[in-house]
């Protein structure tokens, strides 16, 4: 309980909540779109192989996860260190061991985790059908899951901005549909 309270305090002090939301939505969107691209791309290529789709999908998830984890951590850490040093100059005091220093380190670490885990989780969720079902059904289900994840992310955005959640859901869903149609059009052309 004390641990959760601390996390809440650090989130409030570091002002991480809106940044975390941005990281989460942007990267989960990336993850869902990437897996959608891989699945539809594999279908377009013809003779889809579940092993190939799972390997490509997991490889992309791992790459996005690691890139997000490291990239967001080092970026956030650099920015927050700069902010902390600026505050230390105003306070004429070392704040490293204060709650502000701890909140700053927490925010950097948390940013890395959100940035790394959100695309990886979205991608793994979209690829899950390939572990359970035959290839044709798995492709259809995976596309539906990816589009549903995009819709949910839009709904979440709508909720955050206190606007029409359905409209926001449909906006992100349309982006997924555009990607799907472009890839299917490529198949028709060739």
């Amino acid at each position: 309980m004390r641990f959760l309270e601390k996390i809440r305090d650090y989130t409030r002090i570091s002002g991480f909540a809106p940044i975390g939301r941005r990281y989460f939505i942007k990267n989960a969107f990336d993850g869902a779109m990437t897996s959608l691209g891989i699945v539809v791309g594999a279908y377009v290529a013809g003779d889809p192989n579940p092993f190939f789709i799972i390997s490509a999908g997991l490889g992309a998830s791992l790459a996005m996860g690691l890139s997000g984890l490291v990239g967001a951590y080092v970026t956030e850490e650099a920015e927050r260190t700069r902010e902390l040093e600026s505050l230390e100059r105003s306070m004429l005091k070392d704040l490293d061991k204060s709650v502000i220093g701890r909140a700053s380190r927490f925010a950097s670490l948390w940013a890395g985790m959100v940035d790394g885990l959100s695309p990886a989780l979205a991608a793994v969720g979209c690829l899950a059908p390939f572990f359970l079902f035959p290839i044709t059904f798995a492709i259809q289900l995976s596309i539906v899951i990816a589009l549903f994840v995009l819709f949910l992310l839009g709904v979440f955005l709508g909720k955050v901005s206190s606007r029409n959640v359905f409209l926001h859901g449909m906006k992100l869903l349309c982006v997924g549909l555009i990607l799907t149609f472009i890839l299917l059009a490529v198949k028709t052309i060739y």
Partner: protein
Amino acid sequence: MIRRLVLDVLKPHNPSIVDLSKELSELDGVEGVNIITYEIDQKVENVKIILGGSNIDFETVKKKLESLGAVIHSVDEVAAGTRIVEEVGTPQDKSARL
């Protein structure tokens, strides 16, 4: 034993004075806290903290404030003992103002 402590404190905007008051009110010997912001800068703010209690430990208060990123500028008033003695006006105060 300290019964009342008035501090002039410089603090960053976060944690807020709401958080600060909660943290200080949980200290042993502190029974009440009042915090007033009297100056706000771009990154920091000056606040007056008034602590009341039965046995306030100044070092504990100082450490708590430091752990929250705040700095004590000055100790503006201390009341100690079994009874709180209020400030009284004297002719010297008037001449000091002139």
